[in-house]
């Protein structure tokens, strides 16, 4: 191994964040775990450190508190080589239809917060000359559907942001990865009936992200390749037909 690299995982208390952190730690990276649940972060940090023997530090962040992002980045012991944002909020679609405050929280948690945070790290990475940025978005952002379009719209915004960012910074030493997982078996989807062939385990998402970001240098991944096909079909449906579907 050459010098020790560092990954920052924002959303470190989620099943996916934990899996991403473990994939990096297994490859010998030191880990910075960030999130809003201090006790939960300590639990994950101890787990990763004990399993792998790598150093793990924890850092407080609320993705809705955008004004505190600069101080958050300043407070990190080192500027990480890679930052992964796993933060997201599914919310409740039906509630968001009439409760503007709830809709706002969903939009800000999935788009505004993660986009501004990754944008801020992009500037610091540019100043340094290198860095990798990974945003976990969603297939829900590819076409608005009745069942989750507030969440989907925010993810669409996030996906577009990452695309534009990549377009701007990839010539300048940075690498931007958009992750659009299909279904994942996590706390977010606990209790839902998910089709087994379309559903990934968090661990698979963790390793897929590490591989896409650090070894294959991919731009956009779906984790389970079958999703590329599924979404191509969904995107290709003419709106006159799509509007009559129940998805």
């Amino acid at each position, binding site marked *: 191994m050459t010098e020790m690299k560092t990954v920052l995982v924002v959303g470190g208390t989620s099943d996916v964040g934990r899996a991403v952190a473990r994939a990096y730690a297994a490859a010998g990276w030191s880990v910075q775990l960030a999130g809003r649940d201090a006790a*939960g972060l300590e639990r994950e940090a*101890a*787990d990763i450190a*004990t*399993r792998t023997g790598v150093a793990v530090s924890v850092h407080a962040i609320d993705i809705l508190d955008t004004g505190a992002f600069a101080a958050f980045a300043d407070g990190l012991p080192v500027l990480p080589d890679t930052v992964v944002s796993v933060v997201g909020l599914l919310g409740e679609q039906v509630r968001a239809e009439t409760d503007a405050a709830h809709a706002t929280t969903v939009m800000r948690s999935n788009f505004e917060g993660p986009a501004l945070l990754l944008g801020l790290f992009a500037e610091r990475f540019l100043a340094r000359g290198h860095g990798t940025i990974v945003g976990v978005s969603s297939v829900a952002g590819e076409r608005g559907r009745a069942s989750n379009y507030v969440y989907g719209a925010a993810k669409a915004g996030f996906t577009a942001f990452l695309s534009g960012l990549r377009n701007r910074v990839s010539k300048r030493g940075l690498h931007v990865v958009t992750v659009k997982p299909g279904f994942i078996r996590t*706390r977010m989807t606990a209790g839902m009936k998910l089709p087994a062939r379309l559903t990934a385990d968090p661990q698979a998402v963790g390793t897929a992200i590490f591989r896409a970001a650090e070894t294959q240098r991919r731009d956009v991944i779906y984790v389970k390749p079958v999703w590329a096909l599924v979404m191509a079909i969904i995107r290709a449906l003419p709106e006159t037909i799509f509007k009559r579907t129940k998805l």
Partner: protein
Amino acid sequence: MNVELSGWGRYPVAATDLVQPGSPDAVPAMVAGRTGAIARGNGRAYGDAAIGEETTVSLRGLDRMRAFDPATGWLTVEAGVTLAEIVEAFLPRGFFPAVVPGTQFVTVGGMIAADVHGKNHHRDGGFGDHVAALELLLPDGTRLACSREQNAELFHATIGGMGLTGYILAATIRMIPVETGWIRQRTLVAETVADTVRLLDAAQDATYSVAWIDGLARGAALGRSLVYLGEHATRAELGGAQVPTRFGPAAKAGPGVPFDLPALTLNRFSVAAFNEAYFRLGAAKAGSERLVGWRPYFFPLDGVADWNRIYGRNGFVQYQFVLPAARSADLLPDLLDRIARRGSASFLAVLKRLGRGGGLLSFPFEGHTLALDMKMEPGLLAFLADCDRLVAAAGGRLYLAKDARQTRATFEAGYPGLDRFRDIRRRYGLEGRLASRLSRRIGL
């Protein structure tokens, strides 16, 4: 959530409410006010120990590790962490658990609650002997630190206590340093039961020992076996040998058993053929020493996913008893002969030498333990009840982690620590609140 649960033997199956907390802090609220509840680990106990009378509390989600001290080998983990995860994380760093059962798909909580024994019980004691401390949640929400110094009474009752003293949330367990992931194995051939017992008794200095008995051999060959002795191989011992890596070859998942084979597959002939082949194969290598990787050595069955399905839809029971050392030689032939005559024994007839027990209800005592699988079919329960009488009369007992059918009388005869255990349950207000199908059946 209402579900049907069974143990590894798939007998019996019972309906229960299932709750699945995701962290230690989430457990108290989820168990508050419940009666007839019991903890469940990874469901590898064979019978009904991990099925709640009303509620089953899966603690598999408590799967975070907390701390490891390489200087002392003490590892602190939440109780739902599995042995497989521990070996995966620590063997490459030169540490192995002090005691392991025959499968790695068990949780730390389950290993403490059953005080599991490995092939080194005669020398190193049970899993509970290598637990420094545990965090125990009582049903009323009290969280207690238990060790040999603190809440010692509860500590000793919890080791081997089958979940009936509370929910183990976390524990500190001993890891031992090893230089490699390989075992130096010596195989001895025993031609009779007496031979088998003698060879095991003579091998008390060996770190690991176990005998695989041909469960179908009769007459002069009754109880013939292969006795395997093992030591952790050192780096130097590995040096000359042709082995790929220091910590053993990577995981190789064997083919699984995807569906329930028709019940007839496991008739006398298929098992006899298997046993004969196994015996020949082993005997050819007997006397020689060879290096065996940690997986096939400790966890030979883990390579076959879902092997418990080969016994068909009705499931099977594992019959495991221990006999006092002085009584084994005269009782084992009778028991083995009955089993051989019945003809439905498994390829799994394992005899081990046990040392002194740890907890109040721990299974092991100075003696010999025989374990074998028997397909659930008409007549089996009556047959085993007869065997029970012989075992109990000789001062033996049955292993609760394998049990699915013993009577309250058999249990009471075999476990003299029972009165104290009941007394502790009464004093801590656990009666009625913590109860499994097992505890109900045997009157605990």
